[in-house]
Each structure stands twice: as C-alpha cells, then as structure tokens.
C-alpha cells in the first residue's frame, strides 16, 4: 500500500530547517536575527532615498528556555519609510513574500526568507513572534503589533495591534526575544558584524548597545546615498540557451531584432549588424520570435555568445566607491595606512560583478604573527561563517602577499595587523547555501577578486616598502658605526700593522660604506617619491579619506604624510624614523669618525678632521 503523500507549507519547511537559513546554533541565531533586521532596515531606507540611522540594542533579559542559552532581546530601529500596517503580517510572518525576488538588483535581501525565519525562531524558542512598531509619513500615530507566523498556512498573524504615539516622522522598530547566546568578537561576533556593516555603508549612522559594552555611536562619513540600482535588462551573455528561449517567448509577436533590442541591455542596431557579420542569417533578424525554430534559436544564441559585446551596465551593480570606502575604513579604529580598490564591473559566471577591496593596517588591532582579519561582503552584507569555503578566502590565499611585503605561509591568509575587506556586489550572487554565508566561486570570479586584491596589494606595498627602506637605512647606518672600527682593528692586530695603515683603512672603509649608505638613501627616497605620487594621484581622485595636506616641511623632507596614512597615524609609528634616518645619513661619516675616535683614543685629531671633511 502506498503511503499518503502530504504537502507542507513553505513556513513548515523552514520552521523545520531553520539551520539552513542561519539558525543552527544559539550564537548564530542572535547574529542572524540582528543581520536580517539591519539588512531590511538598510534596504528600506535606500529604496526611499533616506540616509539610514539605525539603533541596535541587544540585551540579555533572562535565561533561555533551552539548555545553556540566555533570553536575548534584539531590537533594531530605523528611520526608514515605515511599513503600511496592512503589510506588517506579510513582511514579518510570511515566507517568500518579498518585493525584491528575482528583480536583478543588488539589494541585500533577495528572497524574503530571513526576517520571517527570525520571527519563527522567536516563536519557537520564546512562544512569541516579532514585536513591530512602525509609522509611515502619512500616519499620525504609530502602529504596534506582535507578528506571529502561522506555520501551517505560511502567513503572518497580527496580535495585540495597537496605535501609539511615536515621536518620529517615520520609521520601524522591530524587537525579538529569542533563546540565544551573545558572542561579540571573532568571525561570528556581533561586533564584527556591526563593524563590517559600517565599513561598507559609509552613509549609515549607527548607534549600538551591546552587553558588557558602552553604548556607541558611529557617525556617517558620507551624505551620499548609494544609487540603488534599478532593475536593468539582462545582458545577453548572462543567459543560457533555455533561459534565452523562454525569455524570447515572453515577447510574443515581435521581430527577433526588436526582441533583442528591447529584451536585453547592450544590444543596439550596431550590435545586430555585428551579429550578422558574425554569421547570424539576415532573414532571422526580421523573423517574428514566435515563428523561430529551436535550431534557429541555437544558431542565433551561439552567434550572440561569440560576439564581443559591451560589458553590462555599471548601473546594474552597486559600488561603495573608493572615496567612501577610504573614509569609512577610518571609522574602524586607528588606521596606520590603507589602500582601496574598486574594480570595473565584469562578467563572471554570466553575471555582472563588481569587486571592491580595502586593505588597512591598524595601530590598535591585530598582531604581526596572526593572520589578517578578513571581512567578506556580498552585496554589502558581512559574511561571517564558513570562511574557508568562500571564494573570497580562496582568492586572498591565492595571492602571493610576500611580494607586497607581508608575511604569508603557502596557500594561507597573510599575517599582520591588517584588516582585509573584500566586497563582491552582483544582482545574482551565487551562494553555497540559503543562509548566504559563503560565495560559491568559479575560477573566473576568484580571478576577478584576486586581481582586485593584487592591485590593492600593490598600493599597500608602497607604504610597506617605504617603511622597510627606512628600517634598512637605519640598520645599515648602525652596522657601519658598529662594525667598521672593529673590523679594521682586528685586521690591524692580526697583521701587526702600524697606525698609519689603520688610519688609511678607516678612511677607505668609510668611503666604501658611505657609498652603500647613499645607495640605501636613494632607494628610500625613490620609495618615498613613488608613495607620494600614489597619494597625490589618490588625492586628485578624491580618495584620501580625512587626510591633511602634507605640510611644507614634510614635503621637503619627503615624509609620510598623505592619502593613505591618516593624520592620527602620522603621530604614531614610522613618522620620526625617516627624518631621523635622513639626518643620520648625512652625519654618517662624522658619527663613524667619532666612534673610531672613542675606540682608538689618541688618534682623535685625525679622526675629527676626517669627520669635518666628510
């Protein structure tokens, strides 16, 4: 006897498989809930041209119902447009109810699963869904309600709906009480998430209150809202044959050429002529789509694929931009120097992709022998789990960072007090799982990320090279002072040479090593010039962050001011070294002579005169 086949609702499926969407542990549950709420807030603000200001509060309010968990309250409040009360149940309580599904846009949310999953988790662990308060510009009073998920029916249910006074023009506040555990730092930490979110959202003002930490406000550094990319037509190279044919049939009776021009981006009359030149039968161009055979579609498709087309529109992807990223990175801590890189959009895996990279060395975080902190982003959302499987990690590991002056073991993350932020933006990012934790990377995508990293690495290496040149010069000067006299004296003792020979050898040695020092100084000066040129170029492009102009003295001395190293950093690390070493370089002969004098005693007159000569 066959068993009865039952069908279950989408909500039922997800309620049973919450681990697939980021609720696999109490720690992840807190992070995912926060992430979903913040993502929605940011998307809503951007869609309505509002500069987002978000307040996050996470508190432990008691013990959780499940073993070794806390009852954690997560509240996220935004200044977004607010939600029409009629939509509340749908937004928070129904799976796959999304305004963004399949539109071909680079929004954070895509499918309409995340926030409903958070509501489900709250309901499953604390028997209460999400408490939502919202007010649109047209409402005098705010609406407050509890949204539960009707798991059987996959729909939201409003409870305790009330109207209340809320002293803001518009916005939404959503609160969850869930069983969870709070982890602040590390790859899966809440703080790591919030820092990452601020980094790639320079236009965001964020207030946050986390357990055991003081309330903090991170002000926005950009008043410009990112252009939310409008849903653009697909690029002909982003489709497979089957998709192409289905797409064509949606256009009905039109000619094939009209279908191509109106159904795709980057196809014009000129392009169609190119197609014909490349072997598309002319008769096919004017044929109505409905009457085209499968064979004809195949022919046309293969011609289109092999014809070089203009790359997809930049408007279909979204970038943070080098300038905004430069400013934003300074919000993470005391930056020593940094380098940012925004690549031009490219097609990878048949989809337009933009990769942005920010590399920064911090004065107050990380250690020299630890791997760099890698922040991964997909459509401006931090990815915090399963690092090793991610295309971004693979790309970082594939670069030879030693060439840029960083320590690195083979095929692993480089070492040092650096933060590497890599952002991949694309209307359709291929994730490895529904919880969107790792990007599935083809060789093409990894290569694209790798190129961005290498370009950023080259910029970074200018800073590192200058530092190592400084250290090199300093070391060389020290060596000359220390070992020169000892070498000569040892030789003189073994040979039994007279004082006159000793004097001549000292002079000779000084000349020799003086040449070396000059070479080292020239190398340093060259490194400084290259770095200054890079910074000047960045300054002209307006991507220097909050950076002071190098003052006259610094310019004269070729010092480390400018775009890549913020003013705070200049007070700290390498600043003094170069000036000191320069002065030291000039005085090398004199110092060498003085040391010699001390060591040899009576020969002071001649040694001093040598110093004067030098």
């Amino acid at each position: 006897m066959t068993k009865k086949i039952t069908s279950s609702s989408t909500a039922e499926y997800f309620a049973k498989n919450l681990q697939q969407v980021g609720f696999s542990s109490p720690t992840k549950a807190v992070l995912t809930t926060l992430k979903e709420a913040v993502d929605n807030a940011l998307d809503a603000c951007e869609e309505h041209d509002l500069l987002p200001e978000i307040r996050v509060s996470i508190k432990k309010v008691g013990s959780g119902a499940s073993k070794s968990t806390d009852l954690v309250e997560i509240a996220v409040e935004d200044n977004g447009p607010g939600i029409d009360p009629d939509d509340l149940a749908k937004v928070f309580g129904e799976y796959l109810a999304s305004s963004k599904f399949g539109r071909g846009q680079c929004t954070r949310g895509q499918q309409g699963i995340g926030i409903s999953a958070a509501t489900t988790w709250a309901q499953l662990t604390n028997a209460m869904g999400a408490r939502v308060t919202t007010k649109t510009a047209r409402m005098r009073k705010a609406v407050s309600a509890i949204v539960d998920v009707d798991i059987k029916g996959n729909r939201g249910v409003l409870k305790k709906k009330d109207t209340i006074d809320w002293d803001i023009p518009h916005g939404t506040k959503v609160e969850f009480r869930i069983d969870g555990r709070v982890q602040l730092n590390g790859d899966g930490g809440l703080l790591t998430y919030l820092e990452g979110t601020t980094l790639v959202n320079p236009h965001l003002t964020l207030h946050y209150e986390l357990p055991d930490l003081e309330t903090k406000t991170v002000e926005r550094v950009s008043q410009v809202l990112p252009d939310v990319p409008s849903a653009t037509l697909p690029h002909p190279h982003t489709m497979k044959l089957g998709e192409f044919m289905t797409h064509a049939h949606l256009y009905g009776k039109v000619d094939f050429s009209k279908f191509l021009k109106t159904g795709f981006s980057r196809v014009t009359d000129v392009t169609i002529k190119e197609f014909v030149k490349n072997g598309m039968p002319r008769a096919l161009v004017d044929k109505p789509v409905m009457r085209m055979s499968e064979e004809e579609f195949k022919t046309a498709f293969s011609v289109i694929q092999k014809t070089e087309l203009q790359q997809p529109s930049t408007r279909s992807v979204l970038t943070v931009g080098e300038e905004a990223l430069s400013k934003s990175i300074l919000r993470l801590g005391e930056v020593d120097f940094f380098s940012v890189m925004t690549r031009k959009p490219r097609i990878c895996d048949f989809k337009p992709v933009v990769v942005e990279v920010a590399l920064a060395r911090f004065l107050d975080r990380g250690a020299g022998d630890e791997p760099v902190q890698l922040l991964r982003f997909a459509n401006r959302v931090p990815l915090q789990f399963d690092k090793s499987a991610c295309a971004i990690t693979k790309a970082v590991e594939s670069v030879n960072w030693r060439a840029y002056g960083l320590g690195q073991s083979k095929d692993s993350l480089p070492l040092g007090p650096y933060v590497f932020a890599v952002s991949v933006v694309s209307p359709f990012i291929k994730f490895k799982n529904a919880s969107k934790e790792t990007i599935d990377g083809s060789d093409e995508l990894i290569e694209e990320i790798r190129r961005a990293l290498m370009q950023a690495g080259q910029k970074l290496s200018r800073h590192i090279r200058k530092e190592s040149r400084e250290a090199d010069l300093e070391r060389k000067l020290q060596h000359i002072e220390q070992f020169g006299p000892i070498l000569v004296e040892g030789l003189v003792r073994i040979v039994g040479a007279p004082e006159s020979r000793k004097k001549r050898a000292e002079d000779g040695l000084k000349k020799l090593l003086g040449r070396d020092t000059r070479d080292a100084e020239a190398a340093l000066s060259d490194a400084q010039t290259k770095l200054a040129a890079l910074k000047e170029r960045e300054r002209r492009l307006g991507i220097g962050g909050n950076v002071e102009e190098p003052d006259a003295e610094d310019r004269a001395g070729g010092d480390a001011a400018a775009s890549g190293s913020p003013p705070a950093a200049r007070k700290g690390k390498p600043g003094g070294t170069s000036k000191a070493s320069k002065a030291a370089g000039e005085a090398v002969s004199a110092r060498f002579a003085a040391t010699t004098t001390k060591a040899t005693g009576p020969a002071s007159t001649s040694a001093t005169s040598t110093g004067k000569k030098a």
Partner: protein
Amino acid sequence: MTDKIIRIRNLTKDIPKEAKTLCDAVLRELENANRPVLEAVKCSLDNSEYDPKVGYLTPGDKRVRTELNVSSVQKMARVVFLLEILLDNLKSGMVNTKREVYYISKGKVKGTPSLKPLDFADQDESDSIIDFIGDMMEVYREELNCFANDRGGQTYSQQLVVTETLPDGETATIDLSTLGTSPFQPKNKPQALKLKAKKKIDFCLVVESEGTAGTLVANGMTKRHNCIVMGAQGVPSNGVRGWCKLIQNQIKVPIYFFGDLDAYTMQNIFRTLKAGSAASLIRNSDFSAPEVRFLGVLPEDVKKYDLYCYPVKENDQAEARSLKKAKDALANDPFFQDKKNRRLAAILEWLVKNKLRCEQQALFSVNTKDPLMAEKIIVDKIKSGSFV
C-alpha cells in the same frame, strides 16, 4: 709541539702565516677604498661531486663570496674576531670545542665593551663563522685546534690493538681485549693512532644503534667471531668517520654497516660514513670510509625474515619529511645518482614506493626463543654476501 700531535693529515699550510697574509690583503684593499672579498668553498649538495673512483664527495667549483658592504660588514668583523681567537689557540697550543670557542668569544666581548656588537646570540652563529673560516682557509676545523666532542664509535674487539702517540711523544698501547666490558672510545686524531690485529680479523660491523652494538657484544659476538663491533650512535661524528677510515686503511678488513631501513639512515648516516657529507666537503678525504658496505636492513630482509615494518604516514610531518628527503636524495644527491651506487638508490626507491620503514631492532623479533638470532642473521648475511 701540540701542533704535531693533533695533526690530522700532513698539512703543508702554515695556518698562522696564511691567515696573516689574508688579513693583510683585506687591509690593503680597505686602504685603497676597494671592497675586499672573502672566498670560501661552497659546502653544499649542489656543489658536491662524486667520483666512484675517489669514493667520497668532493667540492665542485662553486665558491661563496663575501664582499664587504653594509650587510656583510658584521660577518667580516666576526670572521676576523674569531680568527684571532683561533690563531691565539694555535699559538699557545690550546684546543677547544666549538661551544668553548663560543664562550671564549663571550668572555672577550665582556672584557672589551667596544666588541659588544660582535656578541653571538647563540652558538649556531659562532659555529657558522668557524665553519666559514675553515672553508675559507681550506683547513679542517680540527687543524684550527677546534675539536668536536668525540661522540659515538664505541669499539669492541678481542683482536684489535691501538697504539696512540701522546702529546709528550710517549706512546700508549691499548689492547681492546683487556678492557673487559668497556669499549674503546676513538679520538678524532687519526694521525696519532696506529692499529694492529693480534690475529686476523674477519670483519668490522658498524651498528647504527650503540645500544644494539652493546647487546651483540654482551651476548658474546666478539668472543665467537674475530671481528670489530662498533656503535655509530646515529649520524657519525668526525671521530667515527676518521676511525672507520683508519680501520679500512690500516688493517684492511671489510666493514659492514647495519642500521634501520629508512631514508634518514640511508642518506644521513650511511652515506655520511661511506662518502662524507656535503657540509664537510673539504675534509671528506680523511673522514669517510668508501669501502663500507650496507648490510641492512635490506628490503629483501623484510620479506625473508618477515620483519615488522612501520607504515610511513604522509600526514605526519616528520615522516613526510623523511619521504621527501628520500625523493630529494634520488633527485639531487650525486652519490645516489652514480651508477656504482644504484643498488643503494634502489633501496631509497623501495622506501618511497612502499612507504614503509623497518628498524634494525626488528631482527630481535625473529625466533624469540633464540637470543642469538640477530647475531646469526648478521653473520649469515655477511657470509652469504647479502649486502650492498
């Protein structure tokens, strides 16, 4: 006086005079503001040559050049500093170990603050300078009165008599049969030792593990056979290598090496004993015994005696390294590449292919009722020619 006694070979060089000439040349270059260059034989595998007629690794044409510049000024100053200490030793006839030289340098630095920059952070630093001086002057470290600890080489025999010329010119005669259970510990001064056999000696057995050598002797091997049994104690020291060469040359007995069947034993222990090492290219002529044969453990012994083997785990770092070492030896070591040693190379290939290793003590697993089984197998292998 001491100079004669510690001489390891008939050296025609006057070391103090040569050192002085060298330093004079360096000083002259400095006076003329030219960059002096110190040159030394490159002692590494890529500069090793193996001629089966010679039988040991010899240096090729490659030289290590140290030209004076800001980066090398420290090394040069250190070379001159230690050279002075060693010359003082030669003058006074004092000898020291490398470690003692390290501490002498420490003492000098302490007494003369201006030498502080030369201070060695650890012995490795001073050792490499001492080695460089030896390679530069093409003299043995021992000829600079710097001796290593006489490790390994504990020797047992009922027939061997050693006559040693002492520092004061007197001679001492040591009949190894009169030492009871104590072994003879050879010193690293082969020129001062003369060997004689009271009775014909049939073979000399060098065992990798000195413990196993002791066991064989304690069980009466040297009483039952006219032989010499020696413990190598791992990688053979200069003392052991010189001693084996002496046995080979003076009493002309066949020498057999018995050790583990693994890449480390084959390349680091046996090859060093037979043909010297890449690090000591300039002294392999006096510190290798090219006629020594590899008695085992051979791959065929594993099969014949059903010996217990350990699998070499490739995920174990140390074991993976040993496997890599075997592959490297086959690819780069001129000793194993020479067709004269193709049977030894075949053993390495067997190790790489089978990913197994077998320890010398595995012989004790054969017929546990017979405590003399290991000895019997060894003697049987010698008699039947089961060696490489």
